[in-house]
């Protein structure tokens, strides 16, 4: 299997190179034969890559432990779906997975555009072919997942090391694929942007074509980030969900620039403005995915997630520099042609609000990038290695986030081109009143923490604007079309998915901010307890009752039991546990794992993590965390996903034709 896969991978290189040059010819000459030839080469390439991935999965399932990758990430006792997940569990496999997703996107793209005879599409394929070539080179010369272990045939290697037990979690099955779908998805808008620059066809066609692709990538990046946060919270993070680790930042930066693009593209569509800016955002989003990948895979930035130092950093850096040089070069070359004749009419216009929102989003991306790469710059310039931790990111991102939150409410409410002061007063009367009420209530009854009060105030403001927008739309339908409330609501959203789906996304963002605000009141403490001993944290009293062990051939589970009282009233029980996974390799020590216990509620989560224990003496060391409002993050995430799905929902054909 691995020999066949290796052959297929080798064949991909000439195919990719051929598709690259053939697509340039197709773009230059506009001859159908060159275009078809490119499509045939690409089809073969895509089939070969899919086959390689399928063969690697086959090797993982069958257990070909003489292959280095299979040996490292599977063993005979692992459940089947974790064996499949091992495809993206390690460096080499994840790169093949990256290429596979790119090919998957390209298959859809090629199918959709197979009859496209515009000058744009061949150059889209040129750009994507270049990315494919890079990944094939990487796989062939630096990170081949089909490599075998030379001495394996001599004996041994009957079984593999297996995917680390800590990763044998359902998040491993869904989180990395979502992130990769987001990362790789940024390639398609980038390819269209480059195609527009290369071909000089800089009207709005490319922008219209990439809106859904960008939204798709953004959608998966959002899911990936949320799942990562949830995984950290439930399994790995000791009660935290975001640590500003370079890998997290790598996924967050393109999310920010793609968010900016999704807003500013509306201005290009409506007013034919910000064409240079949009092009920069599209190029930047892809460049940031490469930068993040380079930083974390090269090992030059210290990260909890970092891969082992390897040669692929050099490959990524070369490709990154090449991408920046080529894209910036073409951008400068086409700058004059990209400039828009329209200008902003007023500071009080939707365009201005969106522009400000864009500046803040890109500013946020710059702030995160700066914090992430500053250690590298410091080492290169001053020879001093430093580490930038969460305090920097929290201090910088709190004000930036709050401004963004406020703009979430302002932007959609202002009219295009110009809004008079009178209109502004009328539009924002109720939202401002709501914000003031929330501010007063929060200060009097909840907290005087300035960032939290500001956050809640702005949340109130944005919620009021969303409510008013829905109310206005529903009332108009109810009066004009004599529809009932629910019918009006559903039709309102269905007739204008982009606008009202967008408001649901904004509602999700508000809930996320409520959840983030709760972090200001997080309380945590570690306790050493004997059986029967009780302690207090906030309004909770908890007593350690006992610890029990459950042994199976593959693991030992030590489960502790706690009785909990809230305000001295019996409340619940908690069962945090420690697991020792036996290694399949003789002589290797067991791998410990922590199974936290979370008592969730809309007010606050009560979080227990068993740190260590002495079973014979019935003593334990436990970490207890009171995490206010965390649930709003996950609910907000669900609304964000729901809203995006509404925005992405395909329009009925007849309406498509009309709008086209």
């Amino acid at each position, binding site marked *: 299997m691995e020999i066949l896969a290796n052959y297929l991978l080798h064949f991909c290189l000439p195919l990719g190179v051929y598709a690259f040059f053939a697509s340039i010819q197709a773009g230059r000459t506009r001859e159908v034969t060159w275009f078809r030839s490119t499509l045939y080469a690409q089809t073969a390439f895509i089939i070969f890559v899919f086959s390689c991935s399928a063969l690697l999965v086959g090797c993982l399932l069958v257990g070909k432990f003489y292959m280095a990758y299979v040996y490292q990430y599977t063993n005979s006792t692992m459940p089947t779906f974790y064996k499949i997940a091992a495809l993206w569990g390690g460096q080499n496999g994840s790169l093949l997975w990256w290429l596979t997703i790119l090919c998957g996107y390209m298959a859809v793209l090629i199918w959709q555009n197979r009859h496209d005879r515009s000058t744009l599409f061949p150059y889209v394929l040129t750009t994507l072919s270049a990315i494919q070539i890079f990944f094939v080179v990487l796989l062939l010369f630096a990170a081949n997942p089909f490599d075998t272990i030379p001495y394996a045939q001599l004996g041994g290697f009957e079984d593999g090391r297996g995917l*680390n037990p800590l990763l044998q979690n359902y998040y491993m099955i869904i989180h990395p694929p979502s992130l990769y779908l987001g990362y790789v998805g940024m390639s398609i808008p980038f390819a269209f942007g480059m195609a527009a620059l290369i071909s000089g066809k800089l009207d709005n066609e490319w922008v219209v074509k990439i809106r859904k692709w960008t939204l798709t990538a953004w959608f998966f990046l959002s899911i990936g980030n949320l799942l990562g946060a949830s995984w950290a919270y439930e399994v790995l993070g000791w009660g935290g969900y975001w640590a500003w680790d370079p890998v997290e930042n790598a996924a967050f930066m393109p999310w920010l620039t793609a968010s900016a693009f999704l807003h500013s593209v509306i201005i290009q569509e409506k007013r034919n403005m910000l064409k240079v800016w949009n092009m920069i955002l599209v190029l930047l989003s892809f460049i940031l995915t490469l930068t993040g990948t380079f930083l974390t895979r090269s090992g030059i930035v210290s990260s909890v*997630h*970092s891969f082992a130092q390897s040669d692929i950093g050099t490959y990524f850096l070369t490709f990154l520099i090449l991408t920046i040089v080529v894209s910036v070069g073409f951008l400068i070359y086409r700058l004059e042609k990209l400039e828009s004749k329209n200008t902003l009419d007023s500071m009080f216009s939707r365009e201005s609000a969106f522009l400000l929102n864009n500046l803040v989003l890109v500013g946020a991306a710059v702030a995160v990038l700066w914090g992430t790469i500053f250690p590298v710059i410091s080492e290169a310039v001053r020879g001093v290695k430093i580490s930038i931790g969460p305090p920097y990111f929290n201090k*910088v991102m709190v004000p930036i986030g709050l401004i963004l939150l406020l703009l979430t409410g302002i932007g959609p409410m202002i009219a295009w081109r110009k809004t008079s002061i009178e209109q502004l007063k009328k539009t924002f009367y109720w939202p401002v009143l709501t914000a003031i009420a929330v501010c007063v209530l929060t200060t009097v009854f909840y907290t005087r923490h300035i960032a939290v009060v500001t956050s809640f105030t702005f949340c109130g403001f944005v919620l009021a604007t969303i409510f008013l927008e829905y109310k206005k739309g529903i009332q108009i339908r109810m009066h004009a079309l004599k529809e009932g409330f629910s019918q009006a609501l559903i039709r309102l959203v269905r007739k204008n998915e982009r606008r009202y789906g967008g408001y649901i996304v904004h509602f999700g963002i508000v809930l996320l901010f409520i959840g983030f605000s709760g972090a200001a009141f997080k309380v945590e403490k570690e306790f*050493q307890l004997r059986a029967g001993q009780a302690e207090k944290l906030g309004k909770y009293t908890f007593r350690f009752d006992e610890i029990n062990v459950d042994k199976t051939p593959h693991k030992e589970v030590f489960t502790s039991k706690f009785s909990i009282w809230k305000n001295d009233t019996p409340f619940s029980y908690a069962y945090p546990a420690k697991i020792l996974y036996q290694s399949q390799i003789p002589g290797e020590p067991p791998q*410990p794992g922590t199974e936290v216990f979370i008592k969730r509620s809309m007010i606050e989560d009560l979080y227990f993590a068993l740190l260590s224990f002495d079973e014979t003496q019935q003593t334990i*060391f436990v970490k207890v965390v009171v995490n206010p409002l965390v649930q709003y993050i996950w609910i907000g995430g669900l609304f964000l996903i729901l809203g995006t799905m509404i925005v992405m929902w395909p329009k009925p054909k007849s309406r498509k034709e009309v709008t086209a």
Partner: protein
Amino acid sequence: MKAEKLKQTKYVFLIGFALLGLVILLTTTLPNSFQYYLTVTEYKDDFEKYKDIEVKLAGHVVPGTIIEDANNAIWKFQVFHEDATMNVYYQGAMPDTFNDEAEVVLTGTFQDEKFVANHVLAKCASRYEEKLDQPLELKTETQN
């Protein structure tokens, strides 16, 4: 034409102020938010400079040196980088990926002849790939 120019100048100012605000925010926040990140070798080479400040210390756990007091969640172990080693004391939550030879980053200060860590970070399990050549070869020998 003049009015148009005035309008554009307003936007340049708006963007300028936004950029200025960002630069001020970044430059004022950064100096108070960083820690030196040193390998055990670098820490020991310039010990006088770093001994009284909180730093991040990177190294690998010396195999066989981990002593755990489970009752009190106290950990004593040594970390090494090249030829330099350091005794470490830590009390608190230990990542599950912590074990012999694990790559760790410790945050803490030097006290009473040892590095007292207040936070231990061990490489995420997903990424602790080893260089294949040597460990696998050794394992083959032991299995044979």
